[in-house]
């Protein structure tokens, strides 16, 4: 079907205000944060911005009948090209549908539409002394829909894990236009083992199975206190060793983050007021809970860290805690600051390895950086083995691009070799597809079969995941 006709039909369904067809407007939907779309941006045929289940259903039916691809999109903060119409199609921008339907405080849950921004949700939940624990670095931008579709996690996954355990039920518009409710039609139960768990199946499916239009999330009581310990190390190996000792001592911090020497430089360049000391590695331990337990656990962490660290800072003052935690969460993009003529790229950025292999992995990545002559900033969620690597290059220099793509390939293979995965929390999208067989073997065949059962025409976000 011609693009112009697709646009006209969408306008008939949604009205002019909710459809973009102009080529210039479509360019704004040709990218996400991935290096892939920086190199090869890709315009969709049209953008639709539905704000009701019925509207989504009508758009999907139209696409189904006419064999047009559908690509769901949240805030477009992903790093994998997952929300890009790499094979053409209609982008469903669900970020405008940002309604918190109900905060059911008595049942410790909240029901939202996909476009709600993570930070906004937690601001609202705080009024009820509740919170939704997963804490992505992109909290102020990313949508809950995007988090569910990618099973996102973040800085607090050590204690609270990823999005998946919090999703109690979903409303999904299937590729043929059917609407299903997972987790029980009328259920407000927290525990539920009835039936094959389609909720779990949908979470992290990256838009290849259906469109998530309503999300029932479990909430936790908001901890009353927080503290952050910063430990500074002159030897890289001391960092993971300290992490293990803290676990051995019976302490489960909410987050444990690592910054290597280049990440420390980047953070200081971006926010000089944070003033991190120069070192081989810095660990940030966050503990939360009730005030006596925070003090108690903070004390244990300090004692353990002092055995190896050059210095340990314990912060409970809000301003300092915010500085340290934000400093870490902005490292993702602030990494570019280590090279005046460079840009951080999002590629090979999300490997996850066993805790016992973190130090080896970091060293191996440094060696790869040296091999290719590329500056690499390392940081990440060391508490769960999720290492973020940020190559800093001039993306407009073809030689550097060629080199970095080779290096990134090696990083992905390294992760699998170390007994880990190519992606801990960002997803596969278009960029990590080639590693599906190496990572999953025959299981990929069954993933494809499952996809065919949901989406026999293959219109849902093709070219992604496997």
């Amino acid at each position, binding site marked *: 079907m011609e693009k112009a006709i697709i646009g006209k039909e969408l306008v008939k369904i949604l009205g002019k205000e909710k459809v*973009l067809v102009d080529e210039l407007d479509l360019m*704004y939907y040709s990218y996400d944060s991935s290096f892939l779309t920086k190199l090869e941006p890709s315009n969709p045929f049209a953008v639709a911005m539905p704000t009701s289940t019925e509207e989504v259903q009508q758009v999907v039916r139209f696409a189904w009948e006419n064999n047009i691809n559908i690509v769901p999109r949240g805030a*477009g*903060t992903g790093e994998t090209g997952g929300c890009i119409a790499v094979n053409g199609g209609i982008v469903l921008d669900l970020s405008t549908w940002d309604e918190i339907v109900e905060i059911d405080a008595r049942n410790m849950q909240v029901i939202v539409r996909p476009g709600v*921004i993570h930070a906004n949700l937690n601001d609202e939940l705080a009024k009820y002394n509740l919170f939704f624990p997963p804490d992505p670095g*992109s909290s102020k931008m990313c949508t809950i829909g995007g988090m569910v579709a990618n099973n996102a996690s973040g800085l607090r996954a050590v204690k609270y894990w990823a999005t998946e355990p919090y999703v109690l039920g979903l409303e999904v518009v299937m590729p043929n236009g059917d609407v299903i409710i997972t987790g029980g039609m009328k259920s407000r139960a927290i525990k539920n083992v009835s039936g094959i768990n389609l909720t779990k199946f949908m979470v992290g499916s990256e838009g290849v199975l259906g469109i998530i239009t309503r999300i029932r999330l479990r909430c936790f009581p908001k901890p009353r206190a927080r503290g952050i310990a910063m430990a500074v190390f002159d030897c890289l190996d001391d960092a993971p060793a300290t992490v293990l000792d803290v676990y051995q001592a019976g302490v489960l911090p909410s987050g444990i983050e690592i910054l290597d020497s280049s990440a420390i430089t980047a953070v200081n360049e971006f926010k000089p007021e944070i003033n991190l000391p120069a070192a081989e590695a810095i660990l940030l331990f966050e503990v939360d809970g009730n005030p006596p337990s925070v003090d108690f656990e903070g004390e244990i962490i300090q004692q353990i860290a002092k055995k190896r660290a050059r210095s340990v800072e314990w912060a409970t003052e809000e301003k300092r805690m915010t500085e340290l935690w934000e400093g870490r969460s902005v490292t*993702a993009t602030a990494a*570019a600051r280590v090279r005046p003529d460079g*840009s951080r790229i999002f590629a090979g950025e999300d490997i996850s390895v066993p805790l016992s292999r973190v130090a080896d992995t970091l060293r191996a990545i440094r060696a790869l950086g040296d091999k290719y002559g590329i500056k690499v900033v390392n940081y990440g969620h060391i508490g769960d083995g999720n290492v973020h690597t940020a190559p800093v290059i001039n993306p407009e220099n073809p030689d550097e691009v060629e080199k970095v793509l080779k290096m990134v390939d090696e990083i992905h293979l390294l992760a699998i070799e170390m007994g880990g995965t190519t992606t801990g929390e960002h997803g596969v999208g278009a960029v990590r597809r080639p590693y599906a067989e190496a990572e999953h073997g025959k299981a990929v065949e069954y993933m494809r079969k499952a996809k065919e059962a949901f989406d026999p025409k293959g219109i849902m976000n093709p070219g992604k995941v496997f």
Partner: protein
Amino acid sequence: MNFKDLPPIKEQLMKCVRCGKCRSVCPVFAEVKNETAAPRGHVFIVQMLRDDKVEPDHKVYEKLSACLLCENCTVNCPSGIDIHELNAAARAYIYEKNPSLGKELVFDTLWTSPGLLKTSTMLMGGVQKLGLQKLARNIGLTKILPGDLSKAEKMLDSVPSRSARSQLPEVNKAKGEKKYTVGYFLGCGTDLLNPEVALATVNVLTLNGCEVIIPRESKCCGLPHIANGKLETARRLAAHNIKIFNSYEFDYIITDCASCSSALSRKNMEFLFKGLKIEDTAYAFAEKVMDLTVFLVDVLKIEMDGDNLSEKRRVTYHDPCHLANAQGIKSQPRELLQRIPGIELVEMKNANTCCGGSGTYSVTHYDMSMKILDKKMDNAMETGADMIATCCPSCMMQLRYGTQRHKWNCRVIHPVQLINDFYLHKPAKTAGE
């Protein structure tokens, strides 16, 4: 200078990783809510312009000029990109390729000649009083003018009948012992729309030992031109002003207008002149430029003793983007307000979010400007303040319009006016005396 050779285009464009942080802080995005208003998207389009993948046409100009240039994205960008400079550079590039007669008239003729600008502003005011505006409106004259002027004309309801320049001599002697010779950069907005601010500035400065000279030949700071794609004109104006002010021996060059001080700042001089012959002269000039509030707090260290005002007046402060974002000046205006006896400073929510005025934006994008203004007014009204203080004539005009629009009896003032009010009751005293 060629668009593609401009430093931000050459050095910064490639740095954008499209992380989307800018989405979360952009006041226009908060209204439009889709990616076509995202600053990172504008950066992408500027890149496409550079690479000749989109035509530098009116349509692209429209997209880019939907941005307020409030710089909130720039200060929050983890990659350190001057997003507003990329946008302004692109506007100029598109303008070069598509000259428009209306803009030539407004920005090259009227707004480069203080006399003509004054006459036309006064005419607007006169037209109001004579009821001719209604006539002009009825015959559709306002529709021919650029942007949404037909809607925005109400904003000019209260143009004062006398400009500041017509009321102030060129040389204003220090009262008491002279400490500094100060060049007063009297911006168009203060001069024509808020002359009482200029009178207060001169009075407060002279009372604090400054000889204040207002060079007659100075012209507009060029910021409206940068926002409207007239980069070359902005360069000409800046070069002119540098020459005029450099012909005096000033200790400081002071302005009470946030937009002017940002336009004359080192950062903006780099944007205009980096790599050009005038570069070093421009930086030396910029070294002397200081916003009035910073000068009063950090250099003159003024203090106001006593409580001679019977009742406490509640004042809320609105951060002008060109002060808070462009120059990082947030504490000095607040510090000043807190030093004035009888004044209680009450913070509003999101004090440093744009008011939607942004110079000519309220005229060129009236509807969007009003949406942003309404949010600002909600936050301001929530404080229950008697006055809104701010340091920018464009913000003052916008906020004043906001108070009318929301039928709120609240004065909009520059902090220097409150200091001047105080001095009317008590003589000046500076630290160390």
